[in-house]
């Protein structure tokens, strides 16, 4: 991935900031931000915030993926289940999951469970929907092949339906992780007292802009690493899938 344009942007920014073409208060030079970044990482607090966010993300993702994949699969193979669950999915899917936060705050109190569950909710719906799509859009002739060659019931599911749906499941997990991160950081920004999102908020309020940008950059880096990493993992595991677009 070419780094020319980002590098050029950074250089431009550095110049404008140093020469006060833009206010260095609001747009500190990248080198300043970089310096603060390294300082804060060395001092440990940026690292601690990162760890907090990552931990929440891990829990949120697990809480979402573990029930979501089986549910999506079940909905795909059993029509009655799909008919029962579909209305709730359709209703909640277009709703901003951040709106669930105040409800969870009341029911579970202000704390980790409410934060994590809100993040999990974004991932949950995405994963269910992608998994369901994976089952529904599989090549139907593969079902014929399965049945003609002696695979029925559970065996048909294990050997044909599940592998056929796997690419879509993977994509759903990948998108879900991204969504969980976005929602979690937003939750931290709004309501938490720790984590990268909160850091951005706090430093914004205190106008300690270099620290704010440092935290911001870390969020961006985290998002990038996760999406690229998962994409690469998907290519590795699903070697038989020739096109991954993206």
């Amino acid at each position, binding site marked *: 991935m070419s780094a020319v344009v980002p590098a050029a942007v950074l250089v431009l920014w550095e110049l404008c900031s140093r020469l006060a073409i833009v206010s260095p208060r609001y747009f500190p030079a990248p080198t300043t931000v970089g310096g603060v970044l390294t300082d804060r990482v060395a001092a440990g607090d940026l690292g601690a915030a990162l760890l907090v966010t990552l931990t929440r993300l891990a829990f949120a993702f697990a809480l979402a993926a573990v029930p979501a994949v089986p549910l999506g699969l079940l909905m795909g193979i059993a029509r009655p289940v799909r008919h029962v669950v579909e209305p709730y999915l359709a209703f909640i899917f277009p709703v901003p999951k951040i709106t669930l936060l105040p409800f969870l705050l*009341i029911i579970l109190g202000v704390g980790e469970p409410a934060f994590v569950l809100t993040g999990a909710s974004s991932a949950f719906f995405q994963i269910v929907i992608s998994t369901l799509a994976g089952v529904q859009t599989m090549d139907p002739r593969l079902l014929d092949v399965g049945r003609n060659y002696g695979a029925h019931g559970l065996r048909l599911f294990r050997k044909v339906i599940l592998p056929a749906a796997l690419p879509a499941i993977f994509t759903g997990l990948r998108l879900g992780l991204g969504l969980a991160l976005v929602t979690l950081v937003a939750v931290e920004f709004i309501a938490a007292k720790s984590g990268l999102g909160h850091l951005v908020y706090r430093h914004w309020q205190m106008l300690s802009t270099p620290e704010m940008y440092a935290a911001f950059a870390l969020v961006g880096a985290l998002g990038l690493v996760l999406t690229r990493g998962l994409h690469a993992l998907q290519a590795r595991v699903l070697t038989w899938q020739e096109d991954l677009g993206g």
Partner: protein
Amino acid sequence: MKALGRWLTEHGTTVGSPIALLLSWEWASATGLLRAVFFPRPSTILAHLRDLALDGTLWGHTAPTLARIGWSFSLAAVLGVAIGLAMGLWRRLREGLDPVFAVIYPIPSVLFLPLASFMVPAGEVALVVTSAVTSFFLIAFTTTHGVRQIDRLVVEAAVHYGARGWRLFATVLLPGALPFIFTGLRLGLGFSLIVVVAVEIVSASRGLGALLWLSWQILKVEDMYATFFVIALLGALLSYGLAALRARLLPWVPDVGDPR
């Protein structure tokens, strides 16, 4: 009438299940099985919703939200489609901008609020600009994909039959990308709603997100549910409404999935 009957038998569970849920919720809340302070009765929620609607509070908060969605979506759509098309057509541009997009896209939109407040006058403009960011990237990304997935053979054939430059764009490239542009717009509109609400929670005094957060802070739970319901309704309207609209107004445009 018969059509309605047939539709109901097919979709019996789909309609019945939520109704059953609402009824059991009403009963559970009324009998104290569910704590009313967490889960007030749907009938109470409905009453509060009616009150909010009647005394104008609801509209007073819905209008600003709608306006912000309208502005941010328009901004995102115009810029997104324009730049998406440009990136689809010119490889250099795409290769140059791709890394920038890749870094910025995964960042939650609310985080851009500080940046926006530095760059544009604080207040409404900053809110609208912030809400446009993620939608912009989404729309640009799907538009670019829409252009690039056009069958090379179709383009070659068109060029062979004399379509160049502007004509090629207008008669082949744009129509070919249209299904994806539409999917991008539909997703982008949904995202506009999400970010507008999130941003309202953070820093607005009016708007559905603000109303939700305010109700939480003063612990008026019924108002919270009522507001949630309105937001959900809005979400459904935007999401499914646009899809239905496309089917009606532009029936030749097929519905394609999310290319991510």
